[in-house]
């Protein structure tokens, strides 16, 4: 029950049917207590949010996730039918177009989300790690996009690969990460990078939901002691 029926107060005592008692021993009980403390289900799936979340700037995060969803789904279809499919099938080409434009939308909205978080200083009040995971997602996305561009199997792939090799080679990583090796780039692009991006995005969402939306800069309503 929430104290005094106040909808603003977050009550964590009844979020799960069998909360692990504070003294219950074991790893599982300990992890469960930690999870229930950090991210009770009522915070993962909230039905209320601070009233100061009243700007369109706040939608850029969720539309970035939406774009990523369609990137992955269209990517799954492209992978299922094989790397050459979209060059020989008009339906395949349409799915490639969905993949192409979803990627454009993903980067557009992600950068808009970054601008919003920068100008709102979203890293305040213990949210530095959330910001940092976001920057890592940005960097990993660029890597994911790069591997995607070089596995298109067309002129663009050839040109990007033969030029990128010089920058990669100059760092000493050219022997490990060969942009001219389609097999390697394809495996990285359809499996390893998407897993990485997805895990990072899930972490990012958990961080945001666990801490909640940061309060406005110099909020006139100071926290009660």
């Amino acid at each position, binding site marked *: 029950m929430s104290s*005094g029926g*106040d*909808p*603003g*107060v977050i009550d964590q005592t009844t979020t799960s049917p069998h909360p692990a008692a504070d003294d219950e021993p074991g790893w599982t009980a300990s992890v469960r207590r930690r999870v229930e403390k950090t991210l009770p289900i009522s915070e993962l799936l909230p039905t209320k949010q601070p*009233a100061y979340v*009243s*700007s*369109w*700037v706040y*939608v*850029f995060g969720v539309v970035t996730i939406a774009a990523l969803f369609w990137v992955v789904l269209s990517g799954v279809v492209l992978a299922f039918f094989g790397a050459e499919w979209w060059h020989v099938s008009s339906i395949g080409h349409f799915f490639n177009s969905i993949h192409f434009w979803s990627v*454009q939308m993903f980067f*557009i909205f992600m*950068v*808009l989300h970054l*601008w*919003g978080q920068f100008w709102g200083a979203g890293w305040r009040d213990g949210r530095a790690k959330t910001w940092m995971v976001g920057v890592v997602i940005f960097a990993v996305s660029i890597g994911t996009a790069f591997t995607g561009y070089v596995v298109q199997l067309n002129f663009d792939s050839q040109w990007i690969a033969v030029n990128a090799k010089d920058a990669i080679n100059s760092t000493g990583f050219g022997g490990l990460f060969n942009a001219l090796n389609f097999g390697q780039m394809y495996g990285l692009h359809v499996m390893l990078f998407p897993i990485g991006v997805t895990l990072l995005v899930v972490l990012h969402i958990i961080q945001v939901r666990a801490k909640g939306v940061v309060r406005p800069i110099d909020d006139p309503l100071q926290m*009660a002691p």
Partner: protein
Amino acid sequence: MDAPAPYIHLGFILISLPNFILICVMVLLFVLALVAPFPSHRPKEPHDE
């Protein structure tokens, strides 16, 4: 759509028209997001503890 794109040359900057339009749209979206009115739900008045 496969013909080479038109380009804009501003000093040392050389940018394709599609990229230029994309960036302009981004800036426009951000500005709109900042100024456009947001549908309001009447917030419940907070109770002091």
